[in-house]
């Protein structure tokens, strides 16, 4: 599903430049649940951003579902993001003046679907994350865990090939973290490829594979026995 070769990325910091990714090779198959670990500054978020086409690598190849992601215009990148990728952020990033169902329907709007179908689909995904009854609530009326579940529903609604989660539990307490992770496991069990960036080992152990980054290189890549959570939803 994802294949990257010799990925490099550096940021200019005034006169000096900061080499963040120093040659990453990675292959992720369909249906995997991968945790990307590392301390802050290890380059894990940069890697995720490049995978999410939110940022561009300086060097190296990136194949997403056998499509070469290179030299994309903003418009094409936006299209790919819309069709291939779903994002879950640490700070949820829900649009605060839209209620839950409208937030979930937003990527469908950019897919050009009709309003009726959007509403239908959005409701369906809200149901999947157990928030059907909260469809008309604004984000400010939801708890942190509920917000993240709405965000997951939104990421899933466009039926992406890969779900990218950047510290999805970073802003949540451990109970709600489990709630969210259990949902991620469930979605993964349905066959979705998911990447989770985290610095918490407990979260990483809920995935099926852990990739550890340190100073811009992969230092460890191992498959693990997943700690399965009970179904919260």
């Amino acid at each position: 599903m994802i294949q990257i070769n010799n990925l490099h990325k550096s940021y200019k910091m005034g006169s000096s430049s900061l080499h963040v990714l120093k040659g990453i090779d990675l292959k992720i198959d369909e249906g995997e649940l991968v945790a990307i670990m590392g301390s802050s500054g290890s380059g894990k978020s940069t890697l995720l951003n490049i995978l999410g086409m939110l940022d561009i690598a300086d060097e190296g190849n990136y194949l997403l579902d056998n499509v070469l992601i290179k030299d994309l215009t903003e418009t094409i990148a936006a299209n790919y993001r819309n069709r291939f990728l779903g994002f879950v952020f640490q700070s949820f990033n829900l649009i605060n003046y839209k209620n839950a169902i409208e937030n979930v329907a937003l990527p469908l709007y950019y897919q050009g679907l009709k309003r009726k179908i959007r509403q239908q689909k959005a409701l369906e995904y809200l149901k999947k994350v157990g928030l059907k009854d909260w469809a008309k609530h604004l984000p400010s009326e939801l708890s942190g865990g509920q917000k993240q579940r709405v965000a997951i529903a939104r990421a899933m609604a466009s039926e992406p090939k890969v779900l990218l989660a950047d510290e999805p539990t970073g802003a949540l307490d451990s109970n709600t973290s489990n709630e969210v992770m259990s949902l991620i496991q469930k979605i993964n069990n349905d066959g979705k490829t998911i990447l989770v960036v985290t610095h918490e080992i407990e979260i990483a152990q809920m995935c099926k594979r852990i990739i550890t980054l340190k100073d811009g290189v992969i230092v460890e890549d191992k498959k693990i026995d997943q700690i399965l959570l009970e179904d919260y939803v």
Partner: protein
Amino acid sequence: MFSRDQWQEIFETIRKNKLRTILSGFTVALGIFIFIILFGFGNGLKNSFEQFFLDDATNTLWLYPGVTSKAYRGFKDNRRIEFENSDLIDIEENFTFFLENITPRINRRETLSYRGQSNSYNIRAIGPAHQYVEKTIIMKGRFINQKDVDERTKNITIGRLVAQDIFKKEDPIGKYIEMGESAFKVVGVFQDKSGDREERLVYLPYTTRQLMEKNNDKIDQIIVSFNPDLGYIGALAFEKQLGDFFKIKKVIDPSDKSGLYIRNTTERVRQNQQFASVLQIIVAFVGIGTLIAGIIGISNIMVFVVKERTKELGVRKALGATPISVVGMILNESIFITTSSGIFGLLLGVFILSRLEDQLEQYFILDPYVDSLTALIATFLLIFFGAIAGYIPAKRAASIKPIVALRDE
């Protein structure tokens, strides 16, 4: 770009961000509203000015006889000069090239009585051309005509306020009013834009007046109007020749300034028009100033709005919004708000101006108005600059990498 879906999205955003919408809409509406009101007031000021000064015909010379200050050709000084009917004929015969209309004027004050009630009024004995030089407007009946002058009829044309005083609600036409020892028939009622004083006048044929005054042929003043095509230079030439002619005819020293007075309205008209154009410039300046203030206001708000939405735009981009759709969304939204509130401000301003009419006349603002072209251009400018002011930050926001926008807490 203008699909129904997109409009729904925009309306939703507008509806759910009421403060933002009201703020930017209010700025635009206020900008246009103040522009319309100020510009309208300016025009009202100009109207009053024109009514004060530009009411009478602008191509006239007024001749007044004076008292000589110098002895000349056997005549002593301090001699009173008088005009007679022959002077009228002389002007008509000698100045055909310049002349358009000519009328004498004799001013008197008389008591008018009707059904036992009497009141005193200023009387002007004139020729039919007087209607033209004073721009008298006939409301009913007719003005004094040539036949009245030739036959020395006892017909009068009375001012609107005279008719009101004397006849109340009665129709004055055909009624007889006593003046001196005879009865005069009212043949017409007039109004005059110069104000109340002009509407308390009574006009009668100058020949009739002369008949009443022992059949003399004296005239108080002569008013001539000249062909407007002569222009300012031509008017001055006419004035000079007319002055020379009368100084010879009445035997006045050519250097004597007090024997004969000629008032040339063109000079005054020219000054007044200069003043009016200064007024126009002030009005335009005020208008442009207001408009610029409005444009700056809406620009500020647009910059703020886009800044406030940076994160939202980042989210939208991460979810698949293209840069064009981001810019399009902000532009459509801002244009929609500015257009609808601009039109609202425009209509409100125009409505208030139209309701004011002459209520502010005591402040010299008469019939304030804004011509529709100016109003539309102003509205368009505000919308246009609102769009530009939205476009620049929107363009920048759309080109920010979503990751940067998302990081922006």
